[in-house]
């Protein structure tokens, strides 16, 4: 059973990486974006949505058939979910596709170029509004997804376009055996940087690193105000000489082997690292912290919306949802699934749902017109 454990561990976490790394990420998206643009820009939806069968009851859809194309990070789903759903609907296949996952522009282009590219997809709150603006999203009829009741309201409000599936907080961690102080705020993090110069790690995700810096400065983590964005940029440039690296792969590794003593990272990444190095201490800073929230949304040109709703409902069954969480190790949104979730995840203070922490969380949101300013500022930080 040791092997199984190892497999789970290695399957934990994904995406973000994909989202961030230029070459390593949704290249297809870029091309597709261009393409879509070439073929006449604005997502001209051919209105392929079938009229939702009025006779089907929400909980037990008529036998579905055909194929569902799902844009998802590889295997960001319960180990047995596809198989279990297949048992219910033997004539329906779900094909997972990862080309462009996580990159909104990639997705938008792909759909504009080929409206039938996929039926539904996984996307974070920070990107969905762009799809909405491009007229790509289908409205979800929640009457057909009754299991949505299992998701607490605060998550539904944060992610109203579809079903929220998971979230991740971005705080920081430090080696309590190598750091004398006990930092609890972002200000502490920034103040300690010069002292532990060369042993500080930053996360290579602009929404989170800039967002958390903005929070430290007392601003909104998603602000569109240029002066505030530049303030965050300057604060980051100030500590940059002390930063060892700005990375998004194996972020916790330097903390594990002692090469770094303090670093900004995702909660589940730290939870995993703690298994290897118990001296790693997680901090959800007092001023607040950024988090991403993501979920499934549907494409309005899909002709399989019935099946999409059915699968969404299926995913939100506590057993299936628990399978998903256990496979991926992510922080989860469904309290009612807790008894079915592995103790390492449900009992982990880093990952568990804690009101007090949650109140301090700011979800990454779409930057709108300010996107250019944000990218510019981040590039300036990287360029310094």
């Amino acid at each position, binding site marked *: 059973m040791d092997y199984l454990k190892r497999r789970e561990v290695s399957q934990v976490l994904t995406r973000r990486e994909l989202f961030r790394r*230029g070459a390593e990420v*949704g290249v297809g998206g870029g091309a597709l974006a261009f393409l879509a643009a*070439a073929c006449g820009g604005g997502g001209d939806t051919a209105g392929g949505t079938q009229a939702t069968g009025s006779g089907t009851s929400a909980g037990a859809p008529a036998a579905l058939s055909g194929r569902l194309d799902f844009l998802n990070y590889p295997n960001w789903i319960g180990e047995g979910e596809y198989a279990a759903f297949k048992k219910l609907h033997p004539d329906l296949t779900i094909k997972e596709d990862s080309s462009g996952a996580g990159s909104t522009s990639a997705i938008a282009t792909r759909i504009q170029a080929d409206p039938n590219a996929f039926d539904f997809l996984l996307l974070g709150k920070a990107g969905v509004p762009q799809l909405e603006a491009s007229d790509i999203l289908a409205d979800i009829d929640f009457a057909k997804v009754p299991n949505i009741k299992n998701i607490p309201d605060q998550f539904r409000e944060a992610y109203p376009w579809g079903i929220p599936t998971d979230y991740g907080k971005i705080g920081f961690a430090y080696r309590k055996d190598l750091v004398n102080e006990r930092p609890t705020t972002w200000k502490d993090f920034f103040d300690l940087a010069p002292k532990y110069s060369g042993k500080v790690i930053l996360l290579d995700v602009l929404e989170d690193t800039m967002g958390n810096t903005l929070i430290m400065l007392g601003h909104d983590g998603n602000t569109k105000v240029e002066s505030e964005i530049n303030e965050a940029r300057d604060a980051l440039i100030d500590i940059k000489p002390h930063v*060892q*690296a700005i990375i998004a792969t194996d972020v916790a590794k330097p903390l594990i082997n002692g090469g770094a003593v303090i670093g900004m990272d995702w909660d589940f990444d730290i939870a995993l690292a703690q298994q290897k190095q118990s001296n790693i201490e997680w901090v959800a800073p007092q001023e607040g912290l950024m988090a991403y929230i993501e979920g499934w949304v549907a494409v309005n040109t899909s002709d399989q919306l019935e099946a999409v709703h059915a699968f969404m409902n299926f995913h939100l069954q506590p057993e299936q949802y628990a399978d998903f969480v256990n496979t991926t190790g992510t922080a989860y949104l469904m309290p009612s699934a807790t008894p079915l979730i592995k103790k390492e995840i449900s009992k982990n203070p880093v990952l568990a749902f804690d009101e007090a922490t949650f109140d301090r969380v700011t979800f990454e949101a779409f930057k709108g017109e300010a996107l250019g300013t944000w*990218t510019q500022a981040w590039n300036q930080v990287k360029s310094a």
Partner: protein
Amino acid sequence: MLIGPTAAWTLLFFLVPLGIMVVYSFGQRDVVTFKLYWGWTVQNYVDIVDSLYLNSIVRSLLLSLTATGLCLVIGFPVAYYISRQSRRRQNLLLLAIMVPFWTSFLVRTYAWVNLLANQGLLQRLGEKLGVVSGALDILYTPTAIGIGLVYSYLPLMVFPLYVALERIDPALPEAARDLGARRHRAFLRVTLPLAMPGVIAGCIIVGIPATGEYVVPAILGGGKTLMYGNVVASQFFEVGNYPFGAALAVSLMTLMTVVLLLSRRSTARLEEVV
């Protein structure tokens, strides 16, 4: 006509798409709705003249020069050595150089991260041998980037060099020595000039793509430097401002073309001499 295949392929799969790209660079894209507006605005090009981007271009050029230089210095002796072997050994050695590159780029580069990390293999080896004490501190520094780049581009330099060197009849430098020239002189005045086409080819094959390199600096440099490639990539993948990305690409292309034209002029002169 012999030139048929080349002409067709270049035209169809290179020039035409490129044309499309250039047209794009004069357009605009709304980053919120991803709508593209065709037009003939030079706004994108104007935007490029910003210290942020210019700096990244300069940085990339410097990086490329360094990488090319290092590759040349290390690659030349290697190519020379190989060219002096028997045909069978040559093939073997060339193959030996290529084999590492059949493991995927990503896996290879992260192996370097592993090797160079404090607590990594290199550090432990150094400590065992007694040459290293304290932290190695190579990873995430320009040195690490240099190592990574040379590693990635070495074969690109070695191959053209080998091809040119292999054809040189050893009788020629030998004759020079017989005529009284010292070893270095024979090398400098006979072998090197004869190998020049290979040197030029190698420098171009390494130098040009190296200016667009940004993944190695990102991984081995700890993401702390902004290369020209980073900018283009972020335009395409994060922001979605393709026209601007296209403009960036076209600008660099123009710059590189100028550099090449100048180098060809000097090569032509060299060819005449040889």
